């Protein structure tokens, strides 16, 4: 499988573990990722909060670039995925809008490609296919799969059920880990407010950590650099502000999958997290 790769801005810095582990896992599984040359920001929440046209035009430029490559496009970041997928959907639905946006971008996006999340791209291999390549099953590791918002909402671009998605659990099960049942897997972590109103985001993070902790999970597993940074970095703040002592490492699903596939740990950036990951990594040898 060959896909155009849209890393997005976060994966260049705060989410670099996700970029490294995604590239390593995909290479191992035979998914060829070709980075879109000259990609630009999707506009994220600031874009759609400010202008509907801009929220379509910024992703549309990148969709047009991917279409010029003749490839479907994948974005690991949940926010980039949602912006690209929604734009693709809206422009395919509405030829008049497609024309208007093409005039704005100066590029001709024809709606011939698809946008897939990296979870879906890896899931195409099939669970059996993944399982067959696991050399180091994550035995005894209890994980709380955290989806957040943007992979499962709104309906037109959801990759799985918006209330009880299972795709991360299935991939983690194929890797030998044991997913727990817990109620907060699609609750918003408040990342979009983390800079402007940190107190609100911290409250939202604390609810998720509490639920994950009560579920008996050893760690959280996510698929979004914004959720990751928020739950990982702000965990220390929650502990300081609320007198709690959460020690829940937050992994990208690609990091744990990479361990199970026997990839070189150096390629997965397992020790650059804010919450120490050592105790959990020891469990999986």
């Amino acid at each position: 499988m060959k896909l155009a790769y849209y890393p997005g801005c976060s994966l260049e810095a705060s989410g670099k573990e996700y970029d490294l582990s995604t590239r390593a896992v995909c290479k191992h599984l035979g998914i060829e990722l070709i980075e879109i040359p000259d990609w630009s920001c999707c506009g994220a929440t600031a874009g759609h909060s400010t202008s509907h046209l801009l929220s379509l035009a910024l992703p549309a430029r990148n969709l047009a670039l991917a279409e010029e490559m003749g490839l479907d496009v994948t974005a690991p970041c949940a926010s980039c995925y949602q912006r690209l997928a929604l734009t693709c959907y809206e422009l395919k639905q509405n030829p008049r809008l497609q024309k208007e946006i093409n005039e704005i971008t100066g590029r001709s996006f024809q709606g011939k490609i698809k946008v897939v999340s990296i979870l879906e791209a890896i899931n195409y291999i099939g669970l059996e296919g993944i399982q067959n390549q696991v050399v180091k099953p994550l035995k005894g590791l209890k994980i709380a799969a955290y989806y957040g918002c943007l992979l499962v909402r709104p309906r037109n671009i959801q990759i799985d059920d918006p209330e009880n998605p299972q795709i991360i659990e299935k991939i983690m099960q194929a890797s030998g880990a044991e997913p727990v049942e817990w109620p907060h897997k699609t609750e918003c972590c408040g990342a979009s407010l983390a800079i402007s109103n940190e107190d609100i985001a911290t409250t939202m993070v604390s609810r998720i950590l509490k639920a994950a902790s009560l579920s008996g999970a050893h760690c959280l597993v996510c698929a979004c650099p914004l959720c990751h940074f928020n739950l990982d970095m702000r965990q220390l703040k929650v502990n300081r502000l609320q007198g709690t002592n959460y020690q829940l490492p937050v992994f990208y699903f690609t990091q744990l999958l990479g361990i199970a596939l026997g990839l070189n740990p150096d390629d997965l950036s397992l020790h650059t997290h804010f919450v120490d990951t050592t105790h959990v990594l020891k469990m999986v040898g």
Partner: protein
Amino acid sequence: MKAIRLNQWEDRNFIELVTRESGQAVENCYQCGKCTAGCPIAFACDLMPNQVIRMVQMGLKEEVLHCQSIWLCASCVTCTVRCPRNIDVARVMDTLRIMARHQGISPPGKGRYVALFNENFLGYIQKNGRLFELATMAMFNLKTGQPFREASTGLAMLKRGKLKLTVTKPRGLDEINRIFEKVRQAEKGGKK
């Protein structure tokens, strides 16, 4: 809080405008309250999501466009997927933010920081094409008069190699700048 007359519209055009701009049939809301029940930021809202929708129906334009909630909405889209009347409530929130901005209303309270963040973020993208976290944070801190906010986080990120110190810009910077300019022109021309 001022008294509201239930038997007369404050601004009859408002619901029509919101409906047109958002593409959502706001009049279909029957106030079940599911949006508010599932809203993760309800605890921080001055108006609950269902109240915002009801007030749009009643034409209470000034109250709605001056509330904090339209800015604090985290765009999680939970309200939208749970709405039994198929109203994309999150999209209505987007529309209201955009209308408030176009009317030059300065967002009150906590909303102010959200608007500043958005403006700062997009200003950076227009010039540089990609977000550079360090510069965007530093600019936000300066504009809000808190220069050392998150300084320890910045240092911790640096230690972990998560703070990029050099900017990577796409080559098509003119093209990106032109996208912003063309959107501005299209919106001036009366389109949304």
